[in-house]
């Protein structure tokens, strides 16, 4: 069994084999559109797993940042093209509906991060880190640099919040991996991935880092505090 976590990994695994069962954890792709599976309830191939498949979800980050900083004028998006542009498009649409400008920073290699930060312009800014393995693994650097620039930043992953990101909203990766592990166990127990329905995360977690908010001098509005699942103090 191949256990592929992240969109590029799933894509690579799927292009590599049509025989070895693959259990995917992918928060970006639409598995049907990507032809990974025939349908959610009957994948029909060698791949199954946990897919978020909700591109509009990225809009929530813009919405949250706008709530956090009502005078937000521009959002800096760190974008790694490797997982695909679905989230970027959602962010663009959301920004448009809120009347917020967008600065898209393409990050293809770690060195790009520092350069991107130095090229940020303007005031009343906020940062959105779109999900990608590269950006995930540089959560700490991204959080540190955001904090250095005194920019509120948000991402999908809890790791970013722990590293100092002020806001995190998304399905917990840990829970998705737990489900994936169960699917792996099922396949090892003899089940065929073709018969195991694709699952979607059911839980969405909102984490607020109050320490960072304090440093940034931001008061977290009640509407966000209300739904926070966890507050880092």
């Amino acid at each position, binding site marked *: 069994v191949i256990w592929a976590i992240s969109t590029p990994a799933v894509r690579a695994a799927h292009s590599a084999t049509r025989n070895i069962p693959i259990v995917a954890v992918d928060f970006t792709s639409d598995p049907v559109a990507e032809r990974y599976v025939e349908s959610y309830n009957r994948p029909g191939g060698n791949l199954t797993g946990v897919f978020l498949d909700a591109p509009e979800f990225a809009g929530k980050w813009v919405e949250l940042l706008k709530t956090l900083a009502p005078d937000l004028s521009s959002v800096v998006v760190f974008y790694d093209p490797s997982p695909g542009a679905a989230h970027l498009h959602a962010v663009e649409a959301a920004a448009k509906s809120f009347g917020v400008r967008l600065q898209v920073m393409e990050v293809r290699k770690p060195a790009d991060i520092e350069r991107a930060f130095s090229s940020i312009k303007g005031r009343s800014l906020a940062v959105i880190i779109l999900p990608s393995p590269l950006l995930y693994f540089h959560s700490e650097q991204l959080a540190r640099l955001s904090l250095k620039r005194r920019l509120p930043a948000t991402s999908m992953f809890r790791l970013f919040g722990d590293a100092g990101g002020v806001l995190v909203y998304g399905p917990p990766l840990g829970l998705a991996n737990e489900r994936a592990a169960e699917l792996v166990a099922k396949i090892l127990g003899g089940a065929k991935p073709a018969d195991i*329905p694709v699952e979607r995360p059911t839980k969405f977690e909102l984490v607020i880092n109050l320490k960072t908010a304090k440093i940034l001098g931001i008061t977290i509005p009640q509407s966000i505090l209300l739904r926070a699942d966890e507050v880092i103090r």
Partner: protein
Amino acid sequence: VKTWLWRGSLFAKYAGPLVVLVSGGLVVSGLVQIYFSYQENKSALARIQQEKAAAAAIRIERFVRELEHDLAWISQTPWGLRGVPLGERRLDSLRLLRQVPAITEVSHIDPGGRERLRVSRLAMDVIGSNTDLSSDPKFVEAMARKTYFSGVYFRKESEPYITIAMAGVGEDTGVVVAEANLKFIWDVVSNLKVGKGGNAYVLDEQGHLIAHPDISLVLQKTDLSALPQVRATSAAIDQGTARGPVDAMIGKDLRGTEVLSAQAAITPLNWTVFVELPVAEAFASLYASIWRTVILVFVGVLISIVASLWIVRRMVAPIQVLRAGAARIGAGALEHRIEVRSGDELQALAEEFNRMTERLQESYAGLERKVEERTHELQIASQHKSQFLANMSHELRTPLNAVLGYTELIQDQIYGAVPDKIREVLDRVQKSGRHLLGLINDVLDLSKIEAGQLVLSSNDFTFEGVTQTAAAAMGSLAAEKNLHLRVDVTPGLPVGSGDERRVTQVLLNLMGNAIKFTDAGDVAVKVTQSDGMFVVSVADTGPGIQEEDRQKIFEEFRQVDSSSTKTKSGTGLGLAIAKRIVEMHGGRIWVDSIVGKGSTFYFSIPVQAGRPGGAS
């Protein structure tokens, strides 16, 4: 041991019925117990399953009721002039989403049927879309009935969702609609523990799976309406039977395994929760108890068989001992005593038997003693008689000798001349006297032998001497009858030891008989040695002796036929005396004879009969 097993034996008679009776009782009681415990267990199991299903239904219902309750609270917010600002409604909705993870989306519809606010976990919140929903069933139904549950629908063809709409009760209240992800019932359902291999699941009205511990089955929209227990339930509903519990029944799961299935209705939604337990597991304890009972009955039967055999054996064994003992005593073993230590009537019987045997033995012993005493008395009497005879013979002989002596003196003309006529008479007197003397001598000898007074002397002798003496004595007799007397002694015979006079007497007797009974021919005496014995034979050419008479002639006072006694005279004691003498020497006497041709008398005596170690 084998005698215990014959068909007619006590053992077979009592052990068989005893074993059958005890084992039969055990088996019947075991069967009755199994039957009742089976029935009781089955209904108890069904009841337990029923209760589990009811409990599961209550938990799922509570899940739905809580959703309802949470929505009801928000739905009371009025619209219009006294209405609450949208911002606050949004906060309320966010709070709801925070509290109820199953709800993914909440929308608010004003009393006019327009959607004013939509708050979602996944998509951006929409404020004031004003979409017209006034004819949407969720609005219409909720306004009419306060609460509306949609059917289950699947997002992305996989995730089960339900729409719950609630209308407020006050004036100017609209409808709040929530989309609830039913995957959250999964937590409820998978936390239901139904034995080891059992599970619970929830079906909607159409028989589609809404919740199951294996979420994949739900996501695949599995249709279970064909399962027997589901069919039975929907049949009951169709017939208008109250949606109360249908009895627990044996159904099948998706894999076709037989399961004990119970169900309970979740009333507000027309869902049914099924609780199933594989039959094998459900009845495992029942089967175990049946097995236990079977084993116990089996062990009981074994024990009862062993015990019955033991008891019967205990009863039969002493009887066997009694029987065997009685048989031995019956066969004459009066000293035998029957050993029974059973401590009961059988032992008493054995003791009676022993007492009886003892008395029998005592009277038997007394009888023997009496016989012995009487025999002894008779022997003494016989000895007295012999003594008397011996004495009498002696007393008879003395006057007879005087008669003979004086007769001889007269014949010798000592007392003057004797005329011829008187001489003849005297000859007869002399002859009769001598005959009488012979008789008396014989009687004397026999009496002495019988009285045990005849003692053999021991001296050395040769058979040449013995035969010469006998031939000389018998020569004239043989010559008188013109018989040819032959004597043949094997040369080189050893010197014998014994009573020469008595051995000579035996030979004389045999020769005398032979001459006496033979009218023509010869009498042959022969002496040989064989195996340390002298064997002497006296053969004649007389009339012979009948086979049946050959033993009788050695008895006292017997001659072959009484007629011959008259003509041949003789006491009839000669052979009896000869036999005694030979036997006293440790020898033997016997006769061979061919009737009409003659007889041969033999006797044998040990060469060293007179020596110590020889015959007495």
